[in-house]
């Protein structure tokens, strides 16, 4: 726990010493679906990047997509920007995000591709900080996601998850040599992904990000984390949305790495606290309640420190942390009890290894 916190601090203090030698042109791909609060500002942040050469390709699956009006507003506000809207979905497999992105991916002018979700908001130096780290030995650069601007119970729970458990998980798995890739921000070279069959090969998986990272490591290339977290604008988010999203993520994890999923409870503060309290009581006669209380306090301090690295820690964040830690075991049991997930209006059955089988429309 303490080690994970220390690694997280080290990761985000890892500043680049040398000046970047070259800045390769970048094609930024933005898959869009629906209009969430903050979408305009999120997308606009990509028009304000301090970077010599980049294009932005927004992709949607339908002409009636409400996000189109937001994109059109930005295209008229920034007429000189190298940006366009693509509405030409392909059917490469059951993964709707890949189907949405395929045409934009094919149209991308540059070898360096950044796939970035619509709820990501970046600072002007984002690409300047990111691209120089894509060295020849690096296959893909992903990022730790900081949850910001949370509203509602679901939003705060989401922020608590991203800014504590998930942030530590990302840096720890990287340190242990099993890096995770998250689709919210993936920077890679098209020529590298082509060696694995290109983006279309990933269309059969629900966790296209995980498989991209897995495949790229098979080329003896590394998966790196960006030196600083990127911000996910959470906004208003219901408790139901939070639960459904984490049920989906959990079942995907279970499908890809069932053994790792089975030992996940050891990393829940409540469960490991209870296990530790019982063990120390049996072995040394310590008061279980005191041990559990100290354990939770220490865990809370470590999580608070990481949270502060990602976003400002507050009383609301503390409350959300308490609720989330209490919910974690219940969520885990719920994940264990099924193999279907709902995603963008469709139900999918998860097969072994993160493969998807089509389900019904909900």
């Amino acid at each position: 726990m303490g080690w994970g916190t220390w690694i997280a601090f080290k990761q985000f203090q890892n500043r680049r010493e040398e000046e970047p030698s070259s800045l390769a042109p970048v094609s930024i791909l933005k898959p869009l679906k629906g209009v969430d609060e903050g979408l305009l500002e999120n997308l606009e942040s990509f028009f304000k990047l301090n970077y010599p050469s980049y294009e932005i390709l927004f992709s949607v699956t339908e002409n009636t997509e409400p996000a189109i009006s937001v994109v059109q507003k930005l295209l008229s506000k920034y007429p000189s920007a190298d940006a366009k809207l693509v509405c030409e979905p392909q059917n490469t497999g059951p993964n709707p995000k890949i189907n949405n992105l395929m045409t934009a991916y094919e149209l991308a002018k540059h070898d360096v591709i950044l796939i970035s979700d619509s709820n990501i908001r970046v600072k002007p130096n984002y690409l300047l900080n990111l691209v120089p780290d894509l060295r020849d030995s690096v296959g893909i650069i992903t990022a730790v996601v900081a949850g910001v601007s949370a509203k509602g119970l679901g939003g705060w729970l989401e922020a608590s998850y991203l800014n504590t458990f998930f942030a530590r998980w990302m840096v720890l798995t990287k340190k242990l040599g099993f890096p995770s890739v998250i689709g919210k921000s993936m920077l890679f070279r098209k020529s590298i992904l082509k060696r694995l069959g290109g983006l279309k090969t990933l269309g059969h998986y629900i966790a296209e990000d995980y498989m991209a990272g897995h495949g790229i490591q098979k080329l003896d290339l590394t998966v790196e984390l960006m030196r600083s977290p990127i911000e996910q604008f959470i906004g208003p988010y219901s408790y139901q949305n939070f639960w459904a999203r984490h049920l989906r993520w959990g079942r995907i994890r279970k499908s890809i790495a069932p053994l790792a999923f089975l030992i996940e409870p050891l990393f829940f503060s409540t469960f490991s606290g209870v296990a530790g309290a019982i063990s120390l009581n049996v072995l040394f006669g310590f008061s279980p309640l005191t041990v559990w209380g100290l354990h939770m306090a220490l865990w809370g301090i470590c999580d608070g420190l990481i949270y502060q690295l990602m976003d400002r820690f507050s009383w609301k964040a503390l409350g959300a942390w308490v609720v989330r830690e209490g919910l974690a075991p219940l969520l885990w049991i719920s994940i264990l009890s099924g193999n279907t997930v709902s995603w963008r209006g469709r139900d999918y059955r998860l097969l072994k290894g993160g493969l998807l089988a089509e389900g019904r429309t909900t």
Partner: protein
Amino acid sequence: MYLADFHLHSNFSDGKLSIPALVDYYGKRGFGAIAITDHFCEQTSLIGRASTYLGVTLTTATFPIYRELLKSEQERAWDQYGMCLIPGVEITKNSILNHRSAHFLVLGNLENIDPNLDISELSDRVRPEGALVIAAHPVSTQKIEKQTFHLWDRREELAPKVDAWEVASGPYLFDEVRYSGLPMIANSDFHSEKNMTSWKTLLSCEKKQEAVLQAIKKQQLDFQFYREETVREPSYSTLPWIMGPQLGHYGMGNVDSLQAISK
């Protein structure tokens, strides 16, 4: 004439090197043809499922990426080394009983691979599409490891459905196969650099997939022993306090060190 090795494992299953590293390793040594054949375990057995959980086998999830990477490395192997890379898998059916365990290689067309099928059914499915089926280490490998005798036990029934039987796997020749009259092939069963010293197949056909597969089928081949030069330098085991320093680190090989041994 050129050397060939048709039984190599990458880190998609239990091999140490990645597919690009295997291509470079064999390409730099002047090999004319190789086949990468990672384990693809049947999922109906407990051992097969355990292998999946342990990540030492191809799975239905990783197989598409494996196939695509082989396709792209085929081009690079040819462009960079003039070497023919043949896509393959080792269908792996492991049981606690050696006589119920079978490993067989499928080389060439990997479109319709299902590791749960019996060799007879799979052979009927893939051979008409141009793939070759090879019985891997069908008799005792003379090593302390899992043995796979099932195919040898059924050799009379399977003879028409198997294109070749490994007469050598690594440094050992199998006399049972050698004098059986069955079509033969010699491979290293390469998992890491230490497996390089082994029997290899020698071909003289064009370095194209179809020509190579035909040469195996028609048995227009020979066998040679390839000895990798050993560079002795001290290395330490992960448990030095128990094991002490170890010697025997394998370094660059040399094709000049080939010793021809007749069939």
